């Protein structure tokens, strides 16, 4: 019986446990509930992966109402991939959160942190799994509102202004998405995403309502993805948020927004409308290339390592949009695989920074000088994540860059492949600055006696780093599912 209701359970368990966490005031009980909820969600997503591989598309009717009338939870290859990313990162970061400085900061209100964390997880999973457009907006807002709360918990007072800026820009983005959904409903009379895609040809591809809906959707999603000119909220939000929260959000929130873009552009509007009738591929490619270079160059000049990683995230999102702009199965595969690999990379790097912050209270590059001698395992994890970020062979990062280059060469655009390689080289510059400071410089006087990070913080970071290497060597699952998803997306148009 449980197997039949997995799609609903995967969202409901975090939601119920979030409400339970508010009622359970004691820190330890709330932690146990949160841990069990995230692990149960991850287990459910893995079971859904197995089911989706065997059965194809799984459709679940909420409330027993059949799809065009009711809300449908629809699991296909792309969805289940995203569910695994979100719940996987969620279940690794949850035990990390317990010992991080964050919990010592919030003390007796720790149960509220767990509740917000579970609500964010529930919202992100809900966005990934739903097949109804307005339901997607509702879950998107659930996850966004809880992420504003989580970011505002930073120690620095600039966390508050960062959360406020993210709130304003994120709400504008979400409101654009809801305008798009409204215009689509006006043109087709349905809210179910597959139903809209079937009714859209009848509404007419030249229909100004449909074109306006497309425009609003792309801009709204771009605000949430932090695509190049609309990325202003991301560096501040990830820098000043607590490391736990940065790790969780950097690995999941933008990926889910890229999923929204993929789902609407390819499944709802269709390849023919989005790329042949409207010239959308060129702006995506140009913005992606700008995103790959400009934030990376800015990252080379930053002194706060978290800010370096935040700008690096904006650049990596450029890679994902580049794959989208290539409009081919190979390009989409590269994009989707990069969503997975980047989640592993950035999750690992931010968790490592959390370990460093726990010991020395700062992520400034000068304060981190010479720390590799006192915290060898932590810096080794940073090097591991860094190798993946650059794209050294045998790491997950290499796999995504490889597929991206193959997709570009497939279309005959060799200069694009050259640009991809050059931007990876820029990543070497900003990562080498950190590694050089950590390994080859003398530590400042007051930090000579620093011990290794506690195991509770080190183990989750190392799990993600090792996952980087594992998925760099054995790509059958990550690339296999991504390819299935890409074929389904391209085939639907």
């Amino acid at each position, binding site marked *: 019986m449980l197997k039949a209701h997995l799609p609903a359970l995967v969202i409901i368990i975090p939601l119920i446990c979030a409400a339970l966490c508010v009622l359970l005031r004691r820190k330890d009980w709330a932690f146990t509930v949160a841990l069990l909820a995230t692990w149960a969600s991850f287990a459910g997503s893995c079971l859904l992966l197995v089911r989706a591989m065997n059965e194809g598309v799984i459709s679940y009717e909420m409330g027993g109402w059949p799809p065009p009338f009711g809300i449908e939870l629809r699991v296909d290859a792309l969805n289940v991939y995203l569910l695994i990313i979100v719940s996987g990162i969620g279940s690794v970061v949850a035990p990390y959160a317990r010992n991080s400085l964050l919990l010592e900061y919030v003390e007796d209100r720790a149960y509220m942190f767990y509740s917000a964390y579970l609500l964010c997880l529930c919202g992100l999973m809900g966005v990934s799994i739903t097949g109804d457009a307005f339901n997607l907006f*509702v879950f998107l*807002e659930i996850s966004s509102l809880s992420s*504003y709360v989580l970011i505002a918990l930073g120690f620095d007072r600039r966390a*508050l202004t960062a959360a406020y800026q993210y709130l304003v820009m994120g709400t*504008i983005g979400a409101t654009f998405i809801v*305008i798009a959904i409204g215009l689509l*409903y006006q043109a087709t009379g349905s809210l179910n995403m597959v139903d809209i895609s079937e009714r859209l040809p009848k509404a007419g591809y030249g229909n100004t309502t449909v074109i306006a809906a497309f425009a609003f959707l792309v801009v709204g999603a771009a605000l949430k993805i932090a695509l190049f000119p609309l990325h202003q909220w991301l560096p501040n939000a990830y820098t000043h948020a607590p490391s736990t929260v940065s790790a969780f959000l950097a690995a999941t929130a933008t990926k889910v927004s890229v999923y929204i873009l993929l789902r609407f552009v390819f499944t709802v509007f269709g390849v023919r409308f989005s790329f042949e009738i409207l010239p959308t591929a060129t702006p995506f490619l140009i913005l992606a290339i700008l995103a790959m270079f400009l934030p990376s160059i800015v990252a080379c000049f930053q002194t706060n390592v978290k800010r370096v990683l935040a700008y690096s995230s904006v650049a990596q999102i450029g890679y994902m949009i580049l794959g989208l702009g290539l409009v081919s199965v190979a390009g989409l595969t590269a994009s989707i695989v990069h969503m997975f690999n980047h989640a592993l990379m950035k999750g690992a790097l931010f968790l490592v920074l959390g370990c460093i912050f726990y010991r020395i209270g700062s992520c400034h590059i000068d304060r981190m000088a010479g720390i590799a001698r006192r915290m060898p395992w932590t810096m080794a994890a940073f090097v591991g994540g860094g190798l993946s970020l650059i794209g050294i062979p045998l790491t997950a990062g290499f796999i995504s860059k490889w597929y991206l280059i193959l997709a570009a060469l497939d279309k005959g655009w060799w200069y694009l492949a050259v640009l991809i390689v050059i931007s990876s080289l820029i990543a070497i510059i900003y990562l080498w600055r950190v590694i050089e400071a950590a390994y080859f410089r003398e530590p400042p006087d007051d930090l000579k006696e620093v011990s290794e990070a506690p195991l509770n913080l080190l183990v989750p970071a190392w799990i993600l780093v090792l996952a980087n290497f594992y998925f760099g060597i054995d790509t059958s699952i990550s690339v296999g599912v991504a390819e299935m998803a890409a074929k389904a997306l391209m085939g639907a148009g």
Partner: protein
Amino acid sequence: MADFEGLYNYWIVIVLAMAGLYIVIARGNLIKKLVGLNVFQASVFVLYISFSKVSGGTAPILDKGIDVYSNPLPHVLILTAIVVGVATTALGLALVVRIRKEYGTIEEDDIHSQDESM
């Protein structure tokens, strides 16, 4: 401009949306930005309810002797969107109260200059 009288709802939507966005961008006071955000969201509500009206339809409440009702689905969507807007405003105002406590001001320029001097 054909059929201007029938479409004046949508003109109001455009005016409200642009006014809201302008307030968010042009005003430096944090609370005024939230007001602009609210105006922008209000325009979305008017948009949804405008296209739910069916010509000759009454309010979507079942009653004897009435055949044509307006579409009730967008009304439900707007209830949800209004609550989302309320939650966002409440959260934004809570952040502004704490920013006031930490910085002593709610003008964006002052906050920027305080941050830059750090």
